[in-house]
């Protein structure tokens, strides 16, 4: 009893609410910076030491690279100067001399404005696809239309005809085995990605289906394809394809290689999509079922949008892999970017010693494309997190 009274007397109550205030300003000065750094090094000595070593290494190698690549480098296509600067400076003049062969392959010299225009067109359409608002249902059809137009113009510009039909624009015919360089890389990547994605989705749906036969077939295909290297698939495409066709006819080497890359990538895409399918809760399926939606409608409106959104980074990674894998077609004699470099330099005794500069050049092109793609997927991620989408 006594305690209770005692406690009641000492109860404190706030009479009003305090207003919210701004925090005190941070003082940034050299002394605080040094103090913080010293503290950091004391707490994590190993990392601190590593940091110091790295700093020295980075500065040294940076200077060395600048020396080789910029200060002592030869920027004009003068073979004498290049030979003189051989071990001390880069010969970027080789790029100036050979860039047309590297970028456009064996395409006839006078007509090289055509692959140039095609590439610019593709890049424009790609940038258009990156604009988020154009994916809204109202504008989406325009996006698809722009891709169809891009494809049609690409075909006309590159081959001079529309899949064999002459349209009378007066462009010289160029066979597909003369296509090469950057347009070929872009063509192979974009078409493989466009075909492998729906195929991969179907395979993933088959793999997660209830029907045992379908599931087994899907699993066998996926595991078989994922167990072998792409090179063996490309070999199959170039050596075995003619055997499989009646009368030993075989389509274009380009089509065969495209089929090979597509079928190969579909298996990897299927695995990524399957991870997404498994991440959609069972409750979603039940809700859709109890509303009366059938299997395909459930997949189309409820499951797949969520599944694909969950694994978008994985899908973009897959696209980047496909883009890089196109470099392997060099081995079956299709001269995309990597192969075109070999083509440009292997036969030319004067410029052959400067292959390294060539590799750095195309490496930079690949890097720009892939880095842009992966950056895009990170932006997608951030954008989709601001519009709150995923709840329990």
């Amino acid at each position: 009893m006594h305690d209770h009274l005692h406690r009641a007397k000492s109860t404190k109550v706030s009479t009003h609410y305090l207003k919210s205030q701004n925090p005190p300003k941070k003082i940034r000065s050299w002394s605080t910076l040094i103090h913080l750094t010293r503290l950091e090094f004391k707490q994590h000595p190993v990392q601190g030491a590593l940091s110091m070593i790295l700093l020295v290494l980075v500065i040294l190698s940076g200077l060395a690279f600048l020396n080789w690549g910029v200060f002592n480098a030869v920027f004009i296509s003068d073979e004498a100067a290049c030979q003189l600067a051989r071990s001390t400076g880069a010969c970027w003049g080789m790029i100036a001399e050979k860039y047309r062969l590297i970028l456009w392959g064996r395409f006839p010299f006078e007509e090289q404005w055509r692959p140039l225009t095609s590439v610019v067109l593709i890049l424009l359409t790609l940038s258009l696809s990156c604009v988020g608002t154009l994916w809204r249902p109202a504008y989406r059809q325009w996006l698809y239309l722009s891709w169809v137009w891009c494809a049609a113009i690409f075909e006309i510009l590159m081959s001079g005809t529309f899949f064999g039909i002459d349209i009378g624009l007066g462009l010289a015919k160029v066979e597909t085995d003369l296509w090469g360089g950057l347009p070929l890389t872009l063509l192979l990547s974009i078409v493989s990605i466009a075909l492998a994605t729906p195929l991969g989705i179907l395979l993933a749906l088959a793999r997660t289906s209830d029907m045992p036969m379908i599931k087994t077939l899907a699993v066998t295909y996926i595991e078989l394809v994922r167990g072998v290297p792409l090179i063996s698939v490309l070999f199959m495409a170039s050596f075995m394809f003619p055997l499989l066709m009646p009368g030993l006819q075989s389509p274009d080497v380009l089509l065969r290689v495209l089929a090979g890359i597509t079928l190969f990538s579909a298996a990897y895409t299927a695995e990524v999509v399957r991870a997404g399918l498994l991440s959609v809760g069972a409750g979603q399926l039940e809700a859709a079922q109890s509303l009366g939606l059938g299997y395909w409608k459930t997949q189309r409106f409820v499951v797949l949008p969520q599944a694909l959104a969950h694994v978008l980074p994985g899908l973009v990674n897959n696209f980047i892999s496909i883009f890089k894998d196109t470099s392997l077609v060099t081995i079956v004699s299709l001269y995309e970017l990597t192969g075109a470099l070999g083509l440009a330099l292997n036969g030319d005794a004067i410029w052959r010693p400067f292959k390294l500069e060539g590799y750095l050049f195309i490496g930079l092109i690949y890097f720009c494309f892939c880095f842009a793609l992966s950056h895009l997927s990170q932006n997608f991620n951030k954008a989709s997190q601001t519009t709150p989408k995923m709840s329990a």
Partner: protein
Amino acid sequence: MKILELWHHKRTRQRLFQCAVVLILLVVVGSLSYNTWTNLKSRGIQSGFDFLMENSGFDIGEHFLISFDSSDHYWWAFLAGLLNTLKVSMVGLICSSLLGLMIGMGRTSHQTLIRWCSRAYVECLRNVPLLLQLLMWYVLLIEYLPSSETPYSWFNAILLSQEGLALPQLMWSSNSSNDFLDTQLLWSWPIRDIYGIHSDLNLSPEFISLTFALILYTSAFIAEIVRAGIESVPKGQIEAAQSIGLNDFQINRFVVLPQAAQLIRPPLTNQYLNLIKNSSLAVAVGYPDVVSIANTALNQTGRALECISILMAIYLSLSLLVSWGMNQFKDASSIAIEKDKERLERSRLDPQGTGARHA
């Protein structure tokens, strides 16, 4: 009416669909096989695996663990190729794992410089095709290394030149060929003479460039996987470990990495498989791995189907082996948990350790 009833019966519809799919598949496979058979006959190409017993007629630049010359059979050639592939893969797997682990931990470091350098490393290596990197390293080794007359040398024991890296090797050798018991373990040093460098252990530029490119490329991916695993461990774990006084290294070893390992294992298995498959790029630099051998055999005998199927069978087996191996690690951790449970159970039943069961 009856048939319509069947159509709406869920299980019957599923069965019909599956039968239809299998039927279509059989038709397609059948027609392809028929085409192949007629084409092979019309071209006069023989088929069958009997070519494996014929003499190969070609030489292989380097061989690992076995010797090979042009009078050996094709199947021995495939074996040599397989061993070469395994040689690259083993070295690649171990080194890329270690390197990837270090870079991955660097990605999550406190120090900004370490983080930036790791990020630059990963971004540069992941965004350029492996083939390009491989060709670049090969060109570097061939063009910028000295010729075998003036190699870089360390203590005259390790010689680096355009012909490769010559290393000393420990070997069994006998003083007299008759006396088997008189064998000793000796070092065999590289020899330089007017013909070049001879050594028992020589790593060719092809091998070095392939392994180097594979290690760097795969380590970038492994680094990202390790980073994701480390970041998945809740911050509270690290805080708790710090508050009981563990230092950086101990926290990583006992708290962070064991928990991260769970998340890391499946994508790591994937990367290992990728490395083994990527070793097939050896054909671009002329390293005689199994794809290269298959290519040569295919060109010489024209047995495309057989060579490619041998190739695919080899890679499938390797994939299965590696997947199975990595799965054993999962079992290893659960074995440890089981052992702990047993120990606790035993100590509960028998606190004094007398061996008698608690009443």
